């Protein structure tokens, strides 16, 4: 297990390098000089300032040196300066990362509470009226674009009933910034994500459970005289959860940047939101940092998925 994790971690390094090169080259290929997006055209004596900035930012050096410099600075924690927001990128991105992780975690909890149990309930009584109607609800929920669900939730819960905030990742008042406050603000976006994903997860869970319920070893368990509840809990459930748990790992990483639209709608200052804003303002340093962080999150998510997989499935663990 230990070597397994180490091997996976080492295996991530070339991928990380490839990601950094891709991000660097993409930004480099962006039309327009990076400097031009940095400086305010109202400043007098623009040319001198431009030259100075080019010098300071090493933009006259060969490309690979620029890349190495950028990477080295990034590793050291110097992620550059946001020219649109006028703050160091770290100040912008790190809180956003925190917010996004809270959102992702909460969303996953909701999925665990809503989607997975629903799928399990469906699988317990497949082809029953309950199962069929749940399947229809799922496919509808799955077909409504998730931002429409989100808008509906904002309208209902934030504007009409005013029970949850519709905007921002933290509130005001004495408790602002506390854990509870964070969760309170993450509630609606997380719930929106969860509603849309739950449809997927319950379909997935149901399918996985039904698949396991057809397996030989389930039949063996029944032949041993175990009551249906035990058969389900101990045999079907345990095996059926393996792909779900793995998917969970993937999603934890994916949510880091995957909820762009929702973060935008909820003005939730997460990674997606910051990236979106930076994209609108062509704030290259921020885009580079967020893209890289998000890619790393996804990589780590995959790692988590693999580890979870190895943990629940002895066939992998004893490899």
């Amino acid at each position, binding site marked *: 297990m230990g*070597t397994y994790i180490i*091997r996976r971690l*080492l295996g991530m390094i070339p991928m990380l390098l490839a990601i950094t090169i891709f991000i660097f080259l993409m930004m480099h290929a962006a039309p327009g000089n990076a400097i031009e997006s940095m400086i305010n055209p109202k400043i007098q004596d623009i040319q001198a300032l431009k030259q100075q900035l080019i010098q300071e930012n090493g933009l006259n050096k060969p490309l690979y040196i620029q890349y190495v410099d950028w990477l080295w600075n990034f590793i050291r924690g110097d992620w550059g300066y946001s020219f649109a927001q006028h703050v160091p990128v770290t100040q912008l991105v790190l809180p956003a990362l925190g917010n996004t992780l809270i959102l992702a975690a909460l969303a996953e909890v909701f999925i665990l509470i809503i989607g997975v149990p629903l799928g399990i309930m469906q699988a317990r009584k497949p082809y029953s009226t309950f199962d069929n109607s749940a399947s229809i609800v799922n496919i509808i929920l799955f077909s409504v674009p998730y931002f429409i669900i989100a808008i509906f939730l904002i309208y209902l819960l934030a504007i009409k009933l005013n029970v949850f905030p519709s905007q921002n990742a933290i509130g005001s008042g004495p408790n602002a910034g506390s854990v509870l406050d964070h969760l309170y603000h993450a509630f609606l976006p997380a719930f929106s994500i969860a509603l849309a994903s739950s449809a997927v997860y319950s379909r997935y869970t149901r399918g996985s459970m039904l698949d396991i319920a057809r397996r030989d070893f389930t039949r063996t368990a029944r032949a041993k005289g175990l009551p249906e509840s035990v058969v389900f809990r101990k045999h079907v459930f345990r095996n059926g959860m393996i792909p779900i748990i793995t998917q969970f790992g993937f999603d934890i990483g994916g949510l880091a940047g995957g909820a762009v639209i929702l973060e935008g709608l909820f003005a939730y200052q997460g990674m997606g939101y910051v990236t979106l804003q930076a994209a609108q303002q062509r704030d290259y340093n921020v885009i580079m940092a967020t893209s890289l962080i998000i890619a790393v999150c996804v990589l780590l998510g995959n790692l988590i998925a693999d580890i979870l997989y190895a943990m629940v499935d002895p066939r992998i663990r004893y490899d």
Partner: protein
Amino acid sequence: MSENLLEVTNLKKYFPINAGLMKRTVGHVKAVDGVSFTVAPGETLGIVGESGCGKSTTGRMIMRVMDSTEGRIIFDGQDITKLKGRGLRNIRTKFQMVFQDPYASLNPKMTIREVIAEPLLVNQVASGKQVVDRVAHLLETVGLRPDDMLRYPHEFSGGQRQRVGIARALALNPKMIVADEAVSALDVSIQSQVLNLMVDLKKEFNLSYIFISHNLAVVRHISDRVGVMYLGQMVEVSPKSDLYENPLHPYTIALLSAAPEAKRKEKRERIILQGDVPSPANPPKGCPFHTRCPRVMDVCRIQRPELREIRPGHFAACHLH
């Protein structure tokens, strides 16, 4: 010039095992470890052995769908061991294969005609109406109705499908057919139909077979000579009656005694081997069979016995002889 159709010399196939931090190759599965035999024109060589002993791998190397690690395969006087591309394509028409699973060996999305015509078309030996005629003829040859040719495999039973598979193998008039467990998946009543068909075809077209199976009775029925494999090695090769009546290798003896026979008359004295077949990834030193051999000697643990001709035409790899 030899008069053999096929000569296999010291054939080996090692599959690398990758493990550890950097997924380096830490060892090899010695699936086939130095196998030699010959097949004469019109002869059937049966290969028996337990699961995982390397029968299929041998068959696939002969069919050149898998590269060998070492050794030589000479077919019809031509060394095909390293043949590639066009040369391989040309020679391939002369040896064909029949597969185990009658359900998996026919493309479910193709009609029977397309299945059988495929070798004809890709080798451009026939075209247009010729193809249809040839397919119809082949279907008749294997005992199916020619007007079945527009039907799809899913409409046929296992035995019928196996006949289609045989028709496909016959399409190019091959000299040799490798049949890998060709009847194992069939029910007994169907199995005999297919076996009879294969025997008939062999006579009709003067075919050579390499008949791979784990069923000793079936191999005895169809083969002229039989080879017994154990853990990647050929432990005994002999004309069949000699092998079945006077087996030399302890493994063959055990195998024959373990095989249940559909008769109640005399209860034979059975030799029940202890333990499992060792893993080909980590085969025992010396004789591969020494871990389970009831007559193991000290030399067996050290030295690997060579396949030697003990009696005329009867080869065995055992220190006892």
